[in-house]
């Protein structure tokens, strides 16, 4: 039993970290009032770009950075559409996902299923060889993501810029009057969500799978959007939400390894069912918009009368 739990904990970060990173991105964007359905697209371009650079023989960290930047690039398109062109945010988000999946499918076609070394595990680094297995199997993106979580939590709760961001998401008109540049804040938040989504995608290919296949994000981006609602737009709760979903997801292969006989695809379905159930229960108890930024999804225009 102990072995089973240890094995589960060892693989856990591989499932949790991408969800955590991408959901922090969605959280930042939505706290600034921009409804963000894009992570599936951000993660797709991040994963592909990272893999492509690895395959081209670049350093894995360069690949991770490039993946992050590719997500940022795609989010710039989203940001221009919703912040400058005032496009309806649900439709724009879906279009961005189509772009992300389309680009990766077209460009990545000839790079499918080619394995590469990718980001080393800690036990493979010069200084980490003696680490216990639980830590040795991880990579540097795990501490980095936890650091980002702490930073973002601090940023939103304590920093003046975080206060401005939250103000824009709650009441953009009031924020505007008090001198906050609403568009700049929203664009910044969207770009951050793209970078974090790209980083999450790069984690999938460069740090976790060490290979790229089309459709490797496999709906995780949609799950991320649900996790943020479930986390009621709080950074620390994003971690618990990611642990719940990722933890359930991670248990399945471990059970199989033990030889427990259960239908594979029904097992894979379980985290999604669980997310939906938890979402429904939370909404039943507290109301679905509890914790939601008041101006989420609304288009702000200075000239509109409120």
């Amino acid at each position, binding site marked *: 039993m102990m072995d089973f739990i240890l094995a589960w904990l060892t693989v856990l970060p591989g499932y949790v970290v991408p969800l955590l990173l991408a959901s922090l991105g969605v959280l930042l964007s939505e706290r600034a009032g921009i409804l963000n359905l894009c992570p599936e697209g951000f993660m797709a371009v991040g994963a592909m770009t990272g893999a492509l650079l690895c395959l081209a023989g670049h350093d894995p960290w360069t690949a991770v950075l490039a993946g992050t930047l590719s997500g940022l690039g795609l989010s710039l398109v989203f940001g221009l559409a919703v912040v400058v062109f*005032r496009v309806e945010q649900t*439709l724009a988000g*879906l279009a961005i996902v189509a*772009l992300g999946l*389309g680009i990766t499918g077209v460009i990545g076609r000839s790079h499918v299923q080619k394995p590469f070394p990718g980001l080393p595990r800690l036990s493979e680094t010069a200084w980490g060889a003696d680490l216990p297995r639980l830590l040795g199997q991880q990579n540097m993106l795990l501490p980095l993501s936890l650091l980002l979580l702490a930073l973002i939590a601090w940023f939103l709760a304590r920093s003046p810029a975080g206060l401005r961001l939250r103000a824009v998401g709650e009441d953009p008109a009031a924020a505007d009057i008090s001198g906050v540049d609403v568009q700049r804040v929203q664009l910044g938040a969207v770009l951050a969500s793209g970078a974090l989504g790209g980083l999450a995608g790069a984690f999938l290919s460069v740090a976790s799978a060490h290979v790229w296949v089309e459709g490797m994000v496999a709906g995780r981006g949609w799950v991320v959007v*649900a996790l943020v609602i479930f986390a009621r737009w709080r950074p620390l709760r994003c971690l618990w939400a990611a642990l719940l979903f990722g933890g359930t997801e991670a248990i399945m292969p471990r059970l199989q390894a033990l030889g427990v006989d259960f239908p594979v695809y029904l097992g894979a379905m379980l985290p999604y069912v669980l997310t939906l159930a938890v979402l*429904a229960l939370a909404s039943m108890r507290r109301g*679905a918009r509890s914790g939601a930024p008041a101006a989420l999804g609304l288009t702000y225009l*200075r000239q509109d009368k409120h």
Partner: protein
Amino acid sequence: MLEGALLIRRQRVPLGLWGATYAAGLVFGLALAALILVRLGVPAPALWQEFVVQTFLTSQGLGQTVTAMIPLVLVGLGTALAMRVQFWNIGIEGQLWLGAMAATWVSLHDIGPAALRLPLMLALSMLAGAFWIALPLALKLLWGVSEVISTLLLGSIAFFWVQHQLFGAWRDTATGFPTSPTLDAVERLPLLGWGQVHAGLWLALGAVALAALVIGVTRLGFYARAVGENRRAARAAGLPVLLIVCSFVLGAGALCGLAGAVIVTGTEFRLSQSIGAGYLFSGIVIAYLARSNPLAVLVVSFLLGGLYTAGGVLKVFYGISEAMVLLVQGVVLLSVLAAQLFADFRVETRRAA
């Protein structure tokens, strides 16, 4: 940052202006998509040949385009009906899977007399699609759970269910591949004698006519417009809001379910893992570009059917992934969406005082 430009919301959008921005967005998007395809290695003259001549102007190509159009009409109509009452149906693929599974289930168990088998498959697929959208609808009405997320999650859940069946009880023992056994002849939609075009065309056209009738002529359609414009005002005016929302949303699910059955019984003749791919975005694109108008849904679906046909050709001849279809849809949708700014707002460039 950009407050130098004033955006003044127009009280009424002139029809001519609306048409012009829409056309400009469409042209810009298509031009951008063409540019991308040329960059990917398709010679520019081939674009005209593959996208216009071979897909619309030859009998064989047109037949393929119409065949591709049939399920697109159904999912586009499904999304449009839901959009009319402000319900984001993003679980199109889930409802489609359920419909396809319901049809396959009837076929595998040989339920009912052979003469009634096909109608039963189609009817049950509609029920299954409606059932799959009923859950998000209930969650939204009862506790306000966002349907964007619940329909999406149910889409993933449906796909795992399909895989569970195909890798398990429904696997074709003759081939060993994860597809269901081929349908019997009585379980297939009859071909119309023009390429692969099948009787599903009449179902799609019938659905368009019915939807146009309901929306344009009946009281229900008129009420639905009121609900879509302002739900609270509609409720205050004493309209049966709940009934309208439920009938439109369940109808949307039923149409998407029917699309699944039409794909299985009309073109594929078996359930496989790949039949539902891509319909999510196409449904959204069609519904938005057609402005939820049933007749326009038919037109947009027809054009999109051409894109699907061309996508197949480009894959074979130029080795370009089918994801191209998705990319083009994304580019065009985003472009039309962005162009709408100039219809919805008057842009004044003087400095804000």
